[in-house]
């Protein structure tokens, strides 16, 4: 047998593609939010092998999906599940397809199916198999075995039910050389931020840390092979050029688990990446966002990255207490996190963050401390206040701990836990509806953060745009006001609840404030955009197909 996709160590390999092979039809069903790189990679690898791939957004709903698939009867329907909470939605599609007589092989992949394949197979009887861990090679292998009519049950890297028993085949090693994979297939119009097209990209896969609430490290550590794999800077630049020239992309969102800036090797890699961005003429044509750990944020390095187009950094801050960071195994301190945020503010890089106001170690006191931390971090209005409650997702160490402690609650679609102080369960339950006017997809905090990202995008591209500083100052004032209003709501309701008074957990004042805040934001924003509309239209319509960028990879 010959290797077709190089870079796979000593694992099972695939037969080389043959010209006489009948191509298989495969449908991939998943979320298309911000593009879906996982599905894009699967589709690209299948296409490289000559197969026909349809990519379908699960949000189209069972009826519309069935219309597309029932008459075609693809050989395989692959469901790409990102979050376990969406499992019922996928199952509804699968059962509808089965009811209409679709007999395709149904398989599913993603973090949750990989780590909790037994639960998935038990709850999703329409499935024939689960593809575990990185799916590119396994899915191709499965499709080709089915296409040949040879036994698919020996495919390495899958699990399935036989006679009510779970069968797991030998695990397939992770893809060691990410540059051996083709660029992801992206058959859709990019989303836009104020007219500037945006698409996601990966420079690496894997994370070296072991945060207890995260399943990324268990996903990569359970499969054989090196956990963190980084692409060559030259190949990353090639893909950036390709996205710019062929999709007109101006804003690139690096969706790495942890952008690879760790240690001296990370700095060398970043230096090369930045140097190549300048050489390729991408700087000023493209701006980019990364997600990384706060400990990487260091003034000189990030100044260099900013000058090469970095405009936004997402960090998983997660807790404002030392105990919380310890429980979550973040291996960070409160002060380190604050220092990183401060450095980014000084450099003029927009900050975005994940923060879990509630985690299994929470007490009334720690929630108060967390609010104090948020006030220190974003009280100045440089970003809107957002937070969540940690949820015990499948495959995470903290879920096992909570189970052992007898605190795990809910079910697969609604994982939950009890706080140590049971009064906090009730406070949280009552609090959630009253913070939704801020913390929700259409909430004020989300709108303010989008406005910040949009302003940074516009001010980076449209040189000469007027009123930037005035708009920035007004946005900062509004954000600071909204944040303070939210913090006060949290503090006052917390204190009152502890004293047996629930009257502060009232939705109406919050809703009225946020509706008004939303209107004020929209007015500020639209005036700024309208004032600069001619310049923006000219900037947005800049030709991306010409210019000093490298020749893109063709595949």
């Amino acid at each position: 047998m010959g290797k077709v996709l190089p870079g796979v160590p000593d694992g099972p390999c695939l037969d080389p593609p043959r010209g006489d092979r009948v191509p298989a039809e495969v449908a991939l069903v998943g979320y298309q939010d911000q593009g879906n790189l996982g599905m894009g990679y699967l589709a690209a690898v299948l296409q490289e092998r000559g197969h026909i791939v349809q990519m379908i957004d699960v949000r189209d709903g069972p009826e519309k999906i069935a219309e597309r698939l029932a008459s075609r009867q693809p050989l395989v329907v692959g469901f790409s599940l990102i979050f376990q909470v969406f499992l019922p939605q996928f199952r509804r599609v699968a059962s509808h397809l089965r009811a209409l007589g679709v007999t395709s092989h149904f398989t599913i992949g993603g973090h949750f199916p990989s780590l909790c394949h037994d639960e998935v197979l038990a709850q999703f009887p329409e499935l024939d198999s689960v593809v575990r861990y990185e799916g590119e090679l396994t899915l191709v292998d499965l499709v080709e075995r089915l296409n040949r009519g040879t036994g698919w049950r020996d495919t390495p890297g899958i699990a399935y039910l036989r006679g009510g028993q779970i069968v797991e085949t030998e695990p397939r090693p992770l893809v060691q050389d990410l540059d051996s994979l083709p660029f992801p297939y992206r058959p859709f119009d990019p989303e836009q931020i104020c007219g500037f097209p945006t698409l996601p990209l990966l420079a690496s896969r894997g994370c070296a840390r072991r945060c207890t609430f995260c399943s990324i490290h268990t996903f990569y550590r359970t499969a054989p092979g090196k956990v963190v794999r980084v692409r060559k800077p030259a190949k990353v630049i090639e893909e950036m050029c390709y996205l710019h020239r062929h999709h007109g992309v101006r804003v690139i969102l690096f969706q790495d688990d942890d952008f690879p800036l760790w240690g001296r090797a990370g700095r060398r890699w970043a230096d090369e990446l930045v140097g190549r961005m300048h050489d390729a003429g991408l700087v000023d044509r493209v701006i980019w966002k990364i997600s990384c750990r706060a400990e990487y944020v260091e003034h000189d390095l990030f100044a260099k990255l900013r000058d090469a187009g970095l405009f936004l950094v997402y960090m998983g801050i997660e807790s404002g207490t030392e105990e919380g960071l310890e429980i979550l195994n973040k291996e960070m301190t409160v002060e380190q996190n604050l220092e990183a945020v401060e450095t980014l503010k000084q450099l003029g890089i927009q900050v975005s963050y994940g923060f879990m106001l509630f985690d299994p170690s929470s007490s009334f006191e720690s929630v108060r401390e967390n609010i104090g931390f948020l006030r220190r971090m974003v009280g100045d209005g440089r970003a809107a206040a957002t937070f969540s409650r940690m949820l015990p997702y499948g495959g995470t160490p903290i879920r096992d701990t909570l189970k052992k402690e007898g605190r795990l609650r809910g079910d697969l679609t609604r994982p939950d836990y009890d706080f140590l102080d049971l009064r906090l369960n009730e406070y949280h339950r009552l609090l959630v509806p009253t913070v939704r006017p801020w913390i929700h997809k259409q909430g004020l905090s989300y709108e303010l953060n989008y406005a910040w990202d949009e302003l940074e995008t516009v001010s980076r591209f449209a040189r000469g745009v007027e009123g930037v500083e005035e708009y920035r100052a007004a946005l900062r004032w509004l954000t600071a006001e909204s944040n303070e209003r939210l913090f006060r709501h949290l503090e006052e309701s917390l204190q009152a609840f502890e004293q047996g008074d629930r009257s502060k957990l009232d939705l109406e004042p919050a809703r009225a404030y946020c509706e008004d805040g939303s209107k004020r934001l929209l007015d500020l924003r639209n005036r700024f955009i309208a004032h600069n509309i001619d310049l923006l239209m000219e900037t947005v319509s800049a030709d991306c197909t010409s210019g000093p960028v490298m020749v893109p990879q063709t595949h």
Partner: protein
Amino acid sequence: MPRPEHIAELPSPFRWRPGPITDSIDMEFVLQEIDPGLRAQVMAATFENVAAVHRTRAEGAAKIAGILAAAAKRG
């Protein structure tokens, strides 16, 4: 300064259309929007599968018992 009608008539790409461009990791609020009816469907499927597993085990155990009993009779 722009006339007010410009604000209402911004060309499509420049209209206010907020959406997250950072990682949408927090699923808590999405979770609450899932149709509760689906959960019942999932639970039913779980119990059906548990029942199927136990039926298979019971059938297997009965067969083994039969084989052992026959072997014991033969001495």
